[in-house]
């Protein structure tokens, strides 16, 4: 009596395993290779893929897609545009899925992260608990760094339209549709040098994004400087608290640095590199009371291109005075770009920012990859994504990813505030082309 269960339980487990394995291989052998046609409604290309589809694993009902993005906080200008795109695309995509006879629909769930890494992780975990396995709109590298281990452990796919830190160029569950900051750093250094800056005073956010971009920008500037043989260099930098809301101390210090440099090298040779977000308006408000800070040129980055608070006349004036140019990954030339441009103009009355085009593409390609995978699973969708991208030309043109899942080539638009028709506005005034290492003004 006491021996029977000892034999029976292993036997039962063995039979169960044999059954499972037998069933799996029988299914593989008998399943036909199905041809799946993916008609990309949101893009210009219609392509036929041949993929193996497991029978009976169809998608039905509503599939939730999480858009966790800064609807408030220092990057809310970006979040507002993503929200507008997500709301418009939800209907468009569902119409498309209905038109091609799919039994599933998407439901976009928007959550505000305020660009705060901890809030981002909290929102992601809550949505994961509600069945979300694909996340879009994660804005900053600090947020990606915070959620990285969780998404890797739980096989959740994240497609960021804007995370750029070189430190996150890792093969993982986070895919980034914008080039990393090694490209942007080169562009910024090249642009500043071509603007005549020989002595550079950097000021940057002390977070993953700011540290990464300042490292790559300053490294390239130093290389250009050393190769030139001219009198040039990098002045003392100010790394500020990313949660700072008031900048009187930092700006007083920056004024000391710039004033000394002007006295030594002349104002035409000195420039300020500011790597910040929307708090730039507060920084400019403090800086405009110092004469010397208004005498040198300033350079920004993707954190400041197109942000709304800088259009306030008081700081917009300063921005124009110091020729504050900001780089932003260029969406390239694509017929679909007009769709995004018009959508944002119609809904928000502003110009679409580069990352908005990337976000538009992230939502479309995520849906196409889910459809291609035939199963709502982060890992399966990640595997299907390269096949979709091979044949996809979206609002930001073709998307080529490198081995780490980051966009491989980076051209950068040069954004500046201009005063036209009685009002301040953001305008693209030039482009930096990474392949040719050239800067063109329009």
């Amino acid at each position: 009596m006491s021996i029977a269960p000892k034999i029976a339980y292993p036997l039962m487990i063995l039979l169960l395993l044999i059954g499972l394995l037998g069933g799996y291989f029988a299914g593989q052998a008998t399943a036909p290779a199905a041809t799946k046609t993916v008609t990309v409604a949101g893009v210009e290309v219609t392509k036929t893929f041949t993929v193996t589809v497991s029978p009976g694993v169809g998608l039905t009902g509503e599939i939730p897609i999480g858009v966790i993005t800064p609807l408030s906080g220092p990057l809310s200008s970006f979040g507002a545009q993503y929200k507008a795109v997500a709301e418009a695309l939800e209907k468009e995509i569902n119409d498309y899925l209905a038109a091609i006879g799919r039994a599933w629909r998407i439901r976009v769930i928007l959550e505000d992260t305020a660009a705060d890494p901890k809030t981002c992780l909290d929102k992601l975990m809550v949505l994961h608990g509600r069945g979300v396995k694909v996340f879009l709109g994660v804005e900053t590298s600090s947020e990606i760094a915070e959620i990285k281990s969780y998404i890797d452990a739980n096989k959740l796919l994240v497609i960021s339209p804007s995370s750029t830190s070189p430190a996150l160029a890792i093969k993982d569950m986070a895919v980034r549709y914008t080039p990393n900051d090694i490209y942007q750093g080169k562009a910024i250094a090249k642009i500043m040098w071509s603007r005549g800056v020989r002595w550079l005073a950097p000021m940057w956010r002390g977070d993953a994004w700011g540290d990464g971009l300042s490292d790559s920008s300053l490294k390239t500037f130093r290389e250009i400087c050393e190769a030139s043989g001219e009198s040039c260099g990098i002045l003392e930098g100010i790394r500020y608290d990313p949660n700072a809301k008031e900048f009187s101390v930092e700006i007083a210090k920056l004024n000391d640095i710039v004033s000394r440099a002007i006295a030594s090298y002349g104002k035409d040779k000195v420039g300020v590199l500011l790597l910040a977000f929307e708090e730039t308006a507060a920084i400019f408000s403090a800086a405009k009371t110092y004469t010397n800070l208004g005498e040198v040129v300033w350079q920004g980055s993707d954190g400041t291109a197109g942000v709304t608070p800088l259009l306030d006349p008081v700081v917009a004036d300063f921005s124009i005075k110091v020729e504050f140019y900001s780089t932003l990954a260029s969406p390239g030339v694509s017929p679909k770009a007009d769709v995004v441009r018009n959508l944002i103009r119609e809904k928000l009355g502003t110009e679409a920012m580069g990352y908005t085009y990337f976000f538009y593409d992230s939502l479309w390609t995520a849906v196409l990859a889910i459809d291609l995978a035939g199963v709502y699973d982060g890992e399966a969708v990640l595997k299907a994504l390269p096949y979709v991208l091979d044949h996809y030309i979206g609002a930001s043109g073709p998307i080529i990813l490198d081995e780490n899942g980051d966009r491989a080539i980076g051209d950068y638009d040069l954004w500046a505030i201009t005063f036209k028709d009685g009002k301040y506005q953001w305008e693209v005034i030039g482009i930096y082309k990474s392949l040719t290492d050239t800067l063109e003004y329009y």
Partner: protein
Amino acid sequence: MSLVYITTRTYNFVLASMLAWGFYIVFTLTHLYGGTPYYYVPVAALFSGLLGLITYFGVNRRLLKTKANETTLMMSTLGFDLILYGFLNVFSDYLVNVHKIPAKFFVLETKDITIDLGGLQVRAIGLVALITLVIAVMTLNTFLTKTRLGIAMRAAIENPELAGALGINPEVVYVLAWFVGGLLAGLSGGLLSLLTVGYTAVGMTIMVIFFAGALVGGIYSIFGSLLGGLLVGLGEYVGVYLMSTYIGGWISAYRPVFPLIIMAIALLTLPEGLISLPWGKLLKVWKIGGVKK
């Protein structure tokens, strides 16, 4: 914070939301009706004063009557603060969605007036905040020492039972303390809108520094809190500026730590705050020193 604590034994964390509401009242009215934000600071102060009354009658009064302990009183203010914070988020969403005002993150300091002092450009908030501080302290001091109600208030603070026996109604004192506490929070929130960027959690962030100031100075004393606030503020700004000059610009990234370091040192060396120092003797020594010179 000190005013409410010494009257009702309550660490008033609702001040965070009162301050944030003051901040948003100034921002909203400036956006809707234009003009300089200074016009709307008194409105913000009155609104937050009303929030103080709502907090007292809605939460604190009932708990005081049941003789709730300090921890319960403090936790109740934390809970009520979260409720007011929630309403502020609803209000900011309303501004964004209905009025298309960028109320989630904004910079109002660009609306400040710049004064030309012999070629030196100075923002008005620096002077206005200083003058407001002096007026507020002098008014509070005059009220507490010269007016009948103020003297009654101090009596009720010292000994509520005795004050009651002498015909002083402690209820009036509590109401007044909550109203004035809210009023000052709204006033500081309104003025802060011209100094820092705005967002709904602004009160929670700044509250840490306020609390540090009150503890450093001595939470049992209004003048001690003022002294502590000055020390913490100067420590953060002047200290960081000097350290960034002599050590390097990287120190700026650690600026928020400075008020907390000052608070930790003060609590370790002077647990009752700066006000516990023998100021009479110190001033006397200083005075004698002056005579010797």
